[in-house]
Structure formats: structure tokens, C-alpha cells
């Protein structure tokens, strides 16, 4: 399978990492021909080692421009303990990718946060590891037109729009215009709830 990268990130994803994808329900999110994939990478440079790609069961995040981004990643196993322990000063990166017919067309790091806490969870039959990171990033504002709103709300005078297919380069601080209803606002916070079943990205206006 050939992979056509349009990748601006230094940590290129390879086909051998396919098992780490969160496979999204195509019917619920794929209104075009691409499937959205997310990857979790734990960097190793700060600890003198290599980056690793961790399998994700889900992740949640709140992204802000200038203010700290909160990122929580659920790894559905404790088998990566040695890898994680070897990278205690690593940075969690979430990459978003578009896949078409098994080919990754584009990947982009959409958020990153230095690892802040590591929380192993044990149940009767399963274990998981929750990695939490906080980190501030500042983005250059731009204007973006979007469609495909799945939910609209106005809470406290602020818009909350949810997308099933977020634009890969969308960042807090951008001014977004929805062609569906003509509403336009500046994004204050982007809230992510992503797992294999559902994918929600909520945009909160300033």
C-alpha cells in the first residue's frame, strides 16, 4: 500500500503504526471519502530516547490559544509501562490524519502537551493507563469556512458548535464561518471527545 504523506510534522507516521489508529465509525463521521484518524505520540528526546506511538482508546482535550491546553489520553493497557516510564519528561502529541482507501493523505499535529500525570487503572479484567498533559500553545489567527455542524447551542451568550469532521488546521483564535447558517465567531476553546464510537469537536466562541 502506498502512502502519500502531506505531513508537516517531523514525526512521520508509518504504516506499521496502523494498529494504533482509532478507527472511527465511517458512517457517522465520513461525509466525504476520507476517514479521520488520530494518533498519540509520546516524545522521547527529553529523556534521550526515541518517540513512541501509543495506542489510544480515547482522548479528551480542551485547547485554547495562549492558555494551557488540557489533554487526557486513555491507553487501553498497561503493557506500555516500560516505554512510558522511560519517557517521564516526554510530550504527548495528538496527530490528526486523513485516510482514503487505506492511504494516509495528510497528518498534522493538532495539539501537544508535556506529560503531567500518569494514572494506571485496573478493573476486574482490563487495565488502562491515563496520561494527562498540560501545555500552552499560541496560534496565528486565520479565517476558516466550515460546514457539517451536528449541534448548535448558545450558552451564556456564547456559541457552541459541534463538528463531526473538524478542519485539520483549525485552531483556537481562528474566526470560523459556518456556511450552513452563516454564523461566524472567533474560537475561544476547542473541546475534543474522541473515541472509537463517537467523535465530537465542540467549538466555543469567545
Amino acid at each position: 500500500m502506498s502512502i502519500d504523506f502531506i505531513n508537516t510534522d517531523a514525526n512521520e507516521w508509518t504504516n506499521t503504526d496502523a494498529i494504533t489508529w482509532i478507527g472511527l465509525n465511517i458512517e457517522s463521521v465520513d461525509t466525504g471519502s476520507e476517514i479521520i484518524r488520530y494518533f498519540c505520540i509520546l516524545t522521547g528526546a527529553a529523556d534521550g530516547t526515541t518517540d513512541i506511538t501509543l495506542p489510544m482508546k480515547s482522548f479528551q482535550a480542551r485547547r485554547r490559544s495562549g492558555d494551557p491546553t488540557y489533554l487526557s489520553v486513555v491507553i487501553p493497557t498497561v503493557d506500555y509501562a516500560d516505554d512510558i516510564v522511560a519517557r517521564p519528561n516526554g510530550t504527548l502529541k495528538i496527530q490528526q490524519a486523513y485516510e482514503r482507501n487505506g492511504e494516509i493523505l495528510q497528518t498534522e499535529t493538532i495539539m501537544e502537551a508535556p506529560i503531567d500525570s500518569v494514572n494506571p487503572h485496573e478493573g476486574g479484567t482490563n487495565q488502562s493507563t491515563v496520561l494527562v498533559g498540560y501545555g500552552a500553545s499560541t496560534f496565528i489567527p486565520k479565517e476558516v469556512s466550515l460546514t457539517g455542524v451536528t449541534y448548535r447551542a448558545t450558552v451564556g451568550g456564547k456559541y457552541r458548535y459541534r463538528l463531526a469532521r473538524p478542519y485539520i488546521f483549525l485552531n483556537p483564535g481562528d474566526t470560523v464561518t459556518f456556511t450552513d447558517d452563516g454564523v461566524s465567531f472567533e474560537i475561544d476553546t476547542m473541546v475534543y471527545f474522541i473515541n472509537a464510537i463517537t467523535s465530537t469537536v465542540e467549538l466555543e466562541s469567545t
Partner: protein
Amino acid sequence: MGKGTIISGGAGGQYQVSMQYNVQRAQAEKTANMAKIANLETQIAAETDTQKLNTLKLQKLALEKRNEAMDAIPESETISCWCADLTEDLSGDVGLVEIPGESQAFNIQPGYEDNAVYDATRDGQLTPTMAMHPAAAFYNLAMLPGWQKWKPTYRYGTITAITGDLANVTLAATTSTQQSLGVNQASALSDVTIEYMNCNGSAFEVGDEVLLAFTGQDWASPKIIGFNEDPRICSCAYILLKHDSQEEGASDRYWYVVWDVLNNAFADITWEHEGAEYHFNSWPINDQIIEIWWSEEKIKFSYFQITSWNYDLYDNISTSSEYYIINWVDGDGAFVGDDILKVDRYDSNISDLPDTGEWRVREGTWTYSIRSGYMLGHKHYDGRYRHALYHCIDGFSNRCSIYEVTWTPYHTLCAYLTCVNPRAELRKTSTPHLVSYVLFAKTENVDHCSLGQNEYLNNDWNIQVHVSPLHSYNLIPTTIPGDVPENTQLSELFAARATAKGADDNSINKFYNYSTSDITGEFSIDAISYMGDEP
């Protein structure tokens, strides 16, 4: 409320303070985590099951990361901070005031009478959010705006009116960091009690930015406890009179009297010095240790040194031991004319009535900016005030400054040696045959400290009055012509008159010269309270 440790500073009441955070909980958590980590290391060494081993390793990493977070919590932060009152010798741990109950603005508790010393019950201690339990942090943040509004602690405000120890205050707009909610219950407060050092309201004036405390965190119980910044000293508190009998070696050569101006009474002084406690309440005394008290006391003074001189022009002053007691004639501070302070001469038992050589302290509102200055002079038998004037008290902005008095055999005037940036002042220069008095006036906020004549010339404008001692002239006190608004250039007031007198108006400095005759009864430099005899 918080805890700080003085690092340096103190001049003018401003300090560098190390704000001490309460990190006890974080430190306790870290200690507990260290014990857990040690236990986990033991378990890891013994564990053979891979799954359990992985979990233990992650648990250990989790604790190590948590301790990293604990280590990152700052234990202190250095801030620049004003004491709410003019206490300049603070050291050690002090209580901090946060306005409006969170880390937005800081002051040090008023330091008068050791009040600023840290008191855990009163001052508490700030706890970093990261050092709190998450539930506690959430609760505090959620409750913060309501607590700030309904259980107020401290606010800033501006005095809009003042009467005695009561003031009306407009509060500074104050919002919480949480949701930017306004936390003032009202925009203004009336009849707010002033509690400040030993002088309360007399240190304040309209327009002052002040620090308010709410007693019992009750909005209905505000009081002004100090200044936002640049705290002002209380008005002159004491006057020290020192009599020098000129008897070299005599054990009682010097005698002292201290008058408590604010209380209009002889001073009652309790003073600790090098482990001993002194109580001065019976005057006069000839214990020179009072001079050490004088030098150490933080309240500023005016210092009148009465010395017996044998010069001809002072022959009316006895060389015997006499004590000159200041009698505060008008205790409310509203002094007018000669009825301000009076110094009566007494013999050593302080029982005689003043004789014809009456000492008096006269009001010295000799400039447009000095609200009350006092000069100590001797009233001669001919009814004219004569020299023997040594120091003046400047009541400018209720600040006490000591000004050296200059005098000549024929003229005695107060002049400034220190810079107080008044809007106008009189200075004297002299030549062998001419004594010049320079009425030197400037707008506010213009620094001028030099006594040099050139400095006068370099300023925007001034007025020079030449007075020849060979001519008879009269500077009988007259009324200052009304209130002169701030920043009024006196040149405007005098310009017309100068033109009429044919003064030299060519100077770019607008330097006006007047002949002796010009000034007779003309200018209101009566404010200088001329005290010389006619030659």
C-alpha cells in the same frame, strides 16, 4: 491576607517583600509520596507477574510526576510593596493585605506600633492553587466573587471629603478575577473613620488614594487604615526646645522641653533604649539622652534650639537658664495670624509669667504652598520681632521638614535648605550691602532643589525682590490674596504689577526686579513674616 518577609527597602514606606506561600499541604503530600515510592520499589523488585509489575511501575511514575508538580509550586515570590503607613524600619515577617482579597494588589499592614508584625490569625497565608486539594481549589474559586463582595476585606478608594477623622470615599472599581464580577456593594462610602498612626485624619486630604479595611468583613464597618502607596507622615508631633546655658562643662548646661503638638500638651514619652525604659513626662529635663530619643524617633519633628547669645542684638535674651515653653493657642490646627503658637518664657521653675521679652512662634505661611509653617522668634521690648530664629516647621502637605533658618544682624527669614517642591518659596541671598529675597515660584511637579542663584534663572520664572538694609521699609503682614489655584504661575499675578513698575521684562526667565520702594506694602510677602528690626 498573607505573610511576607521584608527583604530590603523601607524608605518612604516602600519595601521589597518575599511573599511567603503556604505549601505545607504540598510538602506533606510529597513526604507521603516518597514513602509510597519506597514501598513500590520494594514491591517492584519482588514482583514477577508482568501485568502487576507494569501497574506498579506506572504507579511509581505517577507518584514521581506528582512530586514533580509539588516541587514546582513556588514557596515565595518577591514583590514591591508599600506599607500602608509611613513605617520605614520594618523587618522580619509582616502581614500582607491583598486587595480585593486575592492576589491583585498588595500592601503591608500599617506598621505603626509594631502592628505590621505577622499575625497568623489576622493575616493568614496565601496557598497556591496547586498546593490545595482539587475540591478545595474548586470551592474557593467558585465562592471567591461572592466572598469578596459580601465578606469584604480591603479596598482602595479616593477621599472626596474630609472632616477631622471622618472622610467620604469613592471606591476604586473592583472586580474579581473569577468571571470579572464587580465586588463592591456600593461605589462610595460616607463618614469613614480614619485610623492612621498617631494622627488619624490629619495626615489625609481630599484626593488621597487610601486603603480601607472592613472590620469584621462587614461592609457597614469600613475604616481608612492607610495609603495605597506613598504613605504620608503624620503632622509634626513634637517640638523640642533645647536651652544652652553656654556654661562649658556644666552638668546642666542643656535643658530640654518637649511639647506634644498634636495633643497640645507637654509630651509624655515612654521610650525603650538599649534595654532600659525611659519615661519623660516632667519637664524641663537636663538629660541629654533625650537627644538620642530625638534622633531615633520616627515621627518627624521640628527642632527649636534656643540658645543664649551675647551678641548685642540679642542682649535681651538672658544668659541664665530659662525655658521657653510653647503654648499651643489654637489646637484645632486652623491657625491664623499671630495666634498660632506662642512661646512663653519661664524661669527654671516654669512658674513665672512671660516678661516683656516674650517668645512667640508665629505662623509662617510665607509661600503660597506652605499651609502652615512656624517660626520661633523673640519679641523685643519695642514690640518688633527679632531674630534668634533657628528652625521652621513646614506643614506642607502635613509633612514635617526642618528648614534651616538664616538670619543677618538686620533681617531674619526662613529659607529652605531641603527640597520639598512647593509651588512657591522665598529664598534669600546676600551681598555686603544688599540682601535679596527671592520669591521663587514654580508649578507643581517641577523639581528644584538647588539654592544656587543660577538655578533660579534657569527656571521658568521667578520674581526677585531686592531689599536694601540702608532703607527703611515695611513688610507688614497682609493677607495673602485669596486662594491661588494649583499650577497658577505667580508671574501671571505679578506681571501687571511688574509692568506698571517698569520692571525689566526682557529676560526670557521673566525675572522681575523691584526697588525697595516698590515692595513697601505691595507684595504679600508678608507671608514670610519678616522679623528684622528696622536698621
